[in-house]
């Protein structure tokens, strides 16, 4: 694989993404929503004189952070618990970009001239994957940093240590990019079989729903955030799924298959 060609393909993809306002909205909207909801709750708790004993699951929150006063413990629980939803950004955004890219190219019939060039299919796929994954990684990390700083500014600087915990640093460095790759692969494979980007994006539920289930289970189980062990376990599961999709993808994105089926 030649990095210069991958970079060229990435550059072209990036130009197309950057010129598509609708797609940029798809990238920005979930990131902003997932960060805004808990931040609003934290701000609400901060500015209002709330009887903490009336707050649902307050015992669970206090148990999660026994060293903190009730108000900050509740804010800390909300801030860290909602962070699981940040994993929805790498699950949702890349599949939207990848399916738009592949189906867009199918509709414009621009895959054939690219494949007629002296490039390998793997180089084309790598360029597309990076271009689809990078905005999601950047959005997730950017929102994570902003989220930590804003909530610390609203409530208490001690929230910084909760948001930028070792397990979330590892999750941002490993789990988020891996989920992005999984999402891109799913987007590419599904896009090779359906003709409408929206249909392809609906298949993102296969990635999105398990993450929501984990977030809900975590909340109901009274766990404020992931443990390091759970992050590594998540890495392994996603890696396994990527391996399976790579096998399917290598068949679905074969040069002949693209031309004779996707054209």
């Amino acid at each position, binding site marked *: 694989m030649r990095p*210069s*060609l991958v970079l*060229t*393909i990435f*550059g*072209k993809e990036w*130009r*197309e993404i950057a*010129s*598509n306002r609708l797609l940029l909205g798809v990238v920005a909207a979930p990131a902003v929503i997932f960060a805004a909801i808990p931040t609003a709750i934290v701000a609400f708790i901060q500015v209002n004189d709330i009887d903490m004993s009336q707050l649902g699951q307050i015992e669970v929150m206090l148990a999660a952070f026994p060293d903190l006063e009730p108000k900050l413990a509740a804010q800390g629980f909300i801030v860290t618990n909602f962070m699981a939803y940040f994993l929805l950004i790498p699950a949702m955004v890349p599949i939207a970009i990848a399916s738009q890219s592949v189906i867009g190219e199918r509709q*414009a*019939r*621009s*895959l*054939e*001239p*690219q*494949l*007629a*060039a*002296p*490039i*390998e299919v793997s180089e084309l796929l790598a360029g597309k994957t990076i271009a689809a994954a990078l905005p999601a990684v950047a959005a997730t990390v950017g929102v994570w940093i902003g989220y930590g700083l804003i909530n610390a500014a609203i409530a208490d600087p001690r929230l910084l240590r909760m948001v930028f915990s070792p397990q979330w640093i590892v999750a941002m460095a490993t789990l988020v990019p891996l989920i992005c790759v999984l999402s891109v692969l799913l987007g590419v494979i599904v896009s090779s079989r359906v003709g409408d980007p929206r249909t392809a994006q609906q298949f993102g539920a296969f990635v999105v729903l398990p993450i929501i289930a984990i977030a809900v289970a975590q909340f109901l189980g009274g766990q404020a955030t992931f443990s390091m062990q759970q992050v590594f376990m998540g890495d392994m599961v996603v890696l396994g799924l990527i391996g399976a999709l790579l096998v399917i993808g290598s068949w679905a994105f074969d*040069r*002949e298959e693209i*031309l*004779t089926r996707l054209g």
Partner: protein
Amino acid sequence: MISVQGLERRFRSVTAVHDLSFEVPAGTVYGLLGPNGAGKTTTVRVLAALIAPTAGTVRIADLELGADNRRIRAMTGILTESPGLHERLTARQNLRYYGRLYGLTDATLQSAVERHLELVGLTDAADRRVGGFSKGMRQRVAIARALLHEPRVIYLDEPTSGLDPEAAKSIREVIAGLRDAGRSILLCTHNLDEAERLSDRIGIINGSLLAEGSPAELRRRARPTETRVELDGGTVDAAALAGVMGSLPFVRSARAADARLWVELADPRRDAPDLVADLVARGARILSVSEDVASLEQVYLDLVGEHAHRDPEATRAA
């Protein structure tokens, strides 16, 4: 430069191309004609190393298809059936992207892009998104893309499709210039006039090769050249004359319609003066004498129609 021997390509149970053989030497244009579904696009895709043949051998220059595919792609320029441009990019960005894919360096890329934008007359529109271009403008960008890296072998699928007559003429001049510069060009088209004007040799296919030759050879092959004689209708009976002509030793056949005679001569150039002398001697007043040669369109329609009639299953499969 291009050598195809016994090419076959099947898609499951459907045979798109069967036993196809032809050569395209350097500095020539080979016109590939055939109805929709005849296997033209499949042939081009195989030759461009995009899909593998099921059987047969293909050599491009000294390279063998299958073993040297990346090098073959690097020396090949292809104008696909549909322009296939990146609509959100400008014409210049499209060309720069493909220039890089074909390995042009920064030093050569800029000048190659500008030169080819000028070649297709799009310098002024170079920084506009191609999504807003007309069909003809898109086609011109696609042509520039196919030629950008100065390929030695060029495949052109309907190059003047969607172009106005002036632009089509300029593209034909570009193709002729490329041929004169020693490139091997395979031209797929439905425009028979264009094929006849540009091609050194023509292959008519419908799954397999139905006929091949220079345009003149193909025309002659369709039916013998006839000598057409326009008569002054008031002087003689053309039908009666046709009957008499049939008995002359140098006449193979003769027929008449209105005040015209069509006479097949043993050797038109040698026998035409004798024919005229004989007709005048019989009291005919001759307005004009000309050779009536079959058009390429007639040749094409005869061959494709005959093939469809003889082998309807094969025609459908192709």
